[in-house]
């Protein structure tokens, strides 16, 4: 037997390192006819804001080489809807439920965090300081050390349990941002969010997305993500959660070796709705093949 339990900060341990990435896994229920959600380490639900949001205009996505651009723009029904309608349906799952939160101002983040704090099954939140789609907010916090630290400090005061801060890759020095959020009290960091990108339909001579630019995800971003996880893991002491382009279990191992204590799988769920469980089984098998009895032995070997 391999011990797959792993720490994701603030004393929170999950049963295995497989999480799902926010915005790609709905509220988990969308995948319940394909996999047993209870087998996941946890699932990170859709980006949640204080007020309901309609998101950006259609078209919101286009396929690009080995990846996709999206410009969803945080469409969600607001944190109150989550607390009243969604949360009760998710409570019976054994895996951790982590809520990804967003805001256009520090007050917004704090208000969402405060609403989630009393919910016993929510033991962690992931703070999206990096979403490149939202014109008013997100981006600004995640791209400066002072902004990133300020949001972290404020959310830490509002939420008493594990706070994971999700970093933007659209910066010159991601390690310095990671250090700033660690100084701000973050229990863990997750990375990477989508890389800002753009694609043009040459026949119509128009951008594919209504917002012109959007966030790149999928296999195409993986080498960038692995590099950033490795740099950040070297720079901070808190756990690092790795994601970006993980398509299978082998990719997940790569992130773990680079320094990730856990991984999130995103876009790959669209292609193979069973990818999370298949990755979990691959990791178990890999550990056995390599005589690894505890996944922690692999974390950050590089």
């Amino acid at each position, binding site marked *: 037997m391999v011990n797959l339990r792993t720490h994701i900060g603030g004393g929170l341990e999950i049963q295995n390192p497989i999480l799902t990435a926010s*915005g*790609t*896994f*709905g*509220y988990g*229920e*969308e*995948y*319940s*006819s*394909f996999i047993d959600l209870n087998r996941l380490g946890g699932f990170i639900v*859709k980006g949640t804001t204080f007020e309901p949001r*309609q*998101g950006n205009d*259609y*078209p*919101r*996505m*286009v*396929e*690009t*080489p*080995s*990846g*996709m651009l*999206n410009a*969803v723009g945080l*469409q969600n029904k607001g944190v109150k809807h989550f607390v009243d309608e*969604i949360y009760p349906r998710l409570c019976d799952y054994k895996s951790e439920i982590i809520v990804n939160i967003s805001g256009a101002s520090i007050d917004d983040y704090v208000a969402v965090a405060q609403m989630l704090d009393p919910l016993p099954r929510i033991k962690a939140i992931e703070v999206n300081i990096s979403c490149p789609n939202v014109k008013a907010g997100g981006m600004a916090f995640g791209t400066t050390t002072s902004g990133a630290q300020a949001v972290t400090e404020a959310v830490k005061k509002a939420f008493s349990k594990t706070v994971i801060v999700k970093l933007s890759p659209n910066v010159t020095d991601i390690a310095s941002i990671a250090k700033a959020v660690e100084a701000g009290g973050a229990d863990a960091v997750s990375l990477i969010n989508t890389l800002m990108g753009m694609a043009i339909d040459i026949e119509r001579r128009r951008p594919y997305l209504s917002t012109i630019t959007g966030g790149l995800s*999928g*296999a195409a971003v993986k080498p960038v993500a692995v590099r950033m996880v490795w740099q950040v893991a070297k720079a901070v002491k808190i756990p690092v959660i790795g994601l970006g382009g993980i398509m299978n279990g082998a990719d997940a191992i790569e992130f773990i070796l680079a320094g990730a204590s856990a991984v999130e799988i995103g876009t790959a*769920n*669209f*292609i*193979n*709705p*069973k990818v999370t469980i298949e990755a979990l089984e691959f990791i178990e098998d890999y550990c056995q093949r390599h005589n690894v009895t505890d996944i922690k032995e692999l974390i950050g070997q590089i």
Partner: protein
Amino acid sequence: MNKINSNTKSGTFIVTDNQQLSSTYSLLILRPEDDIDLKLADFKAGQFVEVLPPANSTFLRRPISVCNVDETTNTLWLLIRDAGAGTHALNASRPGQKIDIIYPLGHGFSTTLPKASKVLLIGGGVGVAPLIYLGRKLKEAGIEPIFLLGARSKSDLLLLDKFNEIGKVFCSTDDGSFGTPGVVTQNPVINDNYDIMFTCGPMPMMKAVAKVAQQNNVECEVSLENVMGCGLGACLCCVEKTKDEGNVCVCTEGPVFNIKRLLW
């Protein structure tokens, strides 16, 4: 968000036949590789599947309408228009090719109608695909479907034999090479008295049909083909604006919508 199909599955299908209908269109016949725990016959007209095109030709899956289900051979029909890498690879697939499919997805057309209902099914281009299965389901329910099919010219009219077997067929061609010259909304048959019209095809055609339906005060359901990321209600990329709920996912709330819900 409660609109998710709890019986959605993924599985391998095998191409048993690929009928090249023209240089751009083909009809793929597929059977499930193993016994699947859902009868294909339980698919609803207007539902779709998410196909992983063969040979790593694309990164994501591609949404394709259920064109027909042949209950006697337990096969699924997909009508494919070569529009790019994924549909090209599907068109090129030979019998024996294995294809990974997520099925069935979305909500279909309203088929529980009073027996005496007069219905018109209007299709254009590859949008005729779901109308075969819809026509058959209506017929099984005791309703005589009438088809109005539009195309650029005679050679672009697809599966005419099949449509003729199911119901009465009217055609419109832009160049007048078959049926009534002009677009479908110029065909006089569209202005008969109907209880409901169903349409699937290019966006300008569906919008024109919706306008006729509104003018004639006829119920109208349209099948939308918004670009999709997942088909499962998870990514929120496929949205259409509605009067009642703002942006909703076409993949889970549609792809079929009553035009009353849309801002058309």
